[in-house]
């Protein structure tokens, strides 16, 4: 390569030195490449280590307290072992219900708008703000809901908690709906229009229906996300140690109960906190896994 006098003759000492140096450089670059790739493997391993540790600890420390009583009984006073979180589980389900009633229609409607009018000023603004809204701290949503829904009526309520969670669902559902609707082939829309379908019927009964699987998946993921939210509930749903299903009264929730038990001073309650955490993580993981399997089946291996 660096030969100055062509191919003829045996390589001079200087040529040999140059060749050796090139060889060394290449070897060093290859080595560095291997080392860096090795470090990437290490990074991946370190990144998933906390997940493994958390899952192992949850099962080890929470597994023994998860039994039938956990799902059917109420909390016991400290000092007594056993008991359950029946009210908190029901409370969380009610809160998810309220949140979905608020978040799903708005989110799906807004997502449809973004997918159909994708370049209007409103669409660009909403898309951007939905992403920003998604990143806002959940505690801020909590004090916002308190100011608007708790302070005026002077009492905490399940409704306020559910609406706070619903507001958090809106941007998530909006963005997944948009993505799913955009995956529907344009030819399908054209075919419906060519058959004389009106525009709104095409959108609702052809496009939306085709995208429904994906939208349901997105909705499930959003529900899983808010199911574990604690901060927005601290000053809205508040938590309740008794059985209550009233929307106008404070209501118990699984994450709130875990929080209260975790910072308490009693070993029995710590055990209950671990059990609650195991159940909560179980719910969240199963939904995530189901959502992942559903998307993969619909749209191929994707990533």
């Amino acid at each position, binding site marked *: 390569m660096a030969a100055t006098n062509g191919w003829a003759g045996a390589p001079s000492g200087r040529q040999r030195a140059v060749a050796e140096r090139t060889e060394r450089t290449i070897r060093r670059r290859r080595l*560095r490449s291997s080392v860096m790739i090795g470090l990437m493997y290490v990074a991946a391993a370190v990144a998933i280590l906390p997940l493994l540790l958390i899952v192992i600890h949850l099962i080890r420390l929470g597994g023994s307290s998860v039994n039938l009583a956990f799902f059917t009984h109420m909390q016991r006073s400290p000092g007594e072992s056993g008991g359950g979180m029946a009210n908190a589980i029901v409370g969380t389900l009610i809160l998810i219900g309220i949140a979905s009633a608020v978040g799903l229609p708005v989110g799906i409607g807004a997502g449809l708008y973004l997918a159909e009018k994708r370049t209007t000023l409103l669409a660009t603004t909403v898309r951007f703000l939905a992403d920003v809204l998604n*990143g806002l*701290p959940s505690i801020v949503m909590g*004090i916002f809901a308190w100011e608007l829904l708790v302070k005026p009526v002077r009492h905490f309520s399940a409704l306020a908690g559910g609406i706070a969670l619903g507001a958090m669902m809106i941007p998530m559902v909006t963005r997944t709906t948009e993505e799913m609707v955009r995956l529907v082939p344009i030819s399908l829309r054209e075919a419906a229009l060519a058959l004389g379908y009106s525009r*709104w019927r095409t959108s609702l009964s052809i496009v939306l229906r085709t995208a429904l699987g994906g939208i349901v998946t997105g909705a499930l993921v959003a529900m899983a996300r808010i199911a574990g939210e604690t901060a927005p509930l601290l000053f809205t749903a508040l938590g309740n140690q008794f059985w209550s299903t009233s929307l106008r009264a404070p209501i118990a929730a699984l994450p709130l109960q875990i929080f209260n038990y975790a*910072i308490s001073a009693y070993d029995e309650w710590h055990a209950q906190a671990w059990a609650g955490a195991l159940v909560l993580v179980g719910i*969240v993981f199963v939904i995530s896994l189901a959502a992942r399997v559903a998307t993969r089946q619909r749209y191929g291996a994707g990533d």
Partner: protein
Amino acid sequence: MTDAVARDPTQVTEVATGPAPAGSSRSWTEIGTEIGDRVYTWSIAGFASLVPILLLLIFVAVGVAAWPALRAFGLSFLTSSDWDPVAGHFGAAPAIYGTIVSSILALVVATPLALGVAVFLSEFAPSWLRGPVAFAVDLLAAVPSVIYGLWGIFILIPFLREYLMPFLRDTLHLGVLPLFTGPAYGSSMLAAGLILAIMCLPYISAVTREVLLAVPRSQREAALALGATRWEVIRDAVIPYARSGIIGGIILGLGRALGETMAVTMLIGNRHEISASLFAPGYTMASLIANEFSEATGDMHLAALMAVGFVLLLVTFLVNAIARWLVWQTARER
């Protein structure tokens, strides 16, 4: 994708339901269709406008509630560290300091790992490993905050107190730095920073992965053709191309870390004090609100907490807006 953009559905519709041929009177069905279309368009536009309205409402509601405190204390609210509900003095400096320090600590730990994972997943991972690892990292984002807190209290903090803190301070002799001095309580800035690192890692790595996937294949092939090693392809051809998107991802992780509440509240020790040591307990804006809001004594205390919330809202809004803008700049080219 480009096909869909070229043929905008709105244009298709105009052809289909455009003006009726001249002369023919319009039937009831056509009028019905038109009304239906209008109602539909207006309702989805209405739902879409709820997103900006909601955001505006949040700013107004929190801002109005915070106003008495902001007016009473002015700039000293941000700079004073005197938080005394009994005397009615409120300065949020320790919480602001704690928020910044814990978030920076989180980013310092999480960024190299997250970039490593993202590059690993988009470039190097064998296909059988890619799915499971990506899923595991996604699950890390799905674990509720309160569970990180629980795990932190009972697993991470004892570990820090017994092993990591003594190791850093005594074995590595880092105790000479003010960062690593003082007794190892466990509940500390370090604990909060580490848990935040675990929590914002999946966000950074997801965005980074997304922008790395948007880097054209030709970019990599060109570098390979020039004789670059696989690492050099990443360093010289892929990462520079995706740089602004990656920075956006890191800032997005910062946004998460700034506003994270439950796990931090459970681990940081909740003390109104600015301490140089990472081993000392501290406070963050979010945990301050979480701890004191329901027991607020008097209107000014409440207004001060709202003011903390307003500052947090403003900061996270800006951070997220910048991050999203950067990510869009890169990923849009797909």
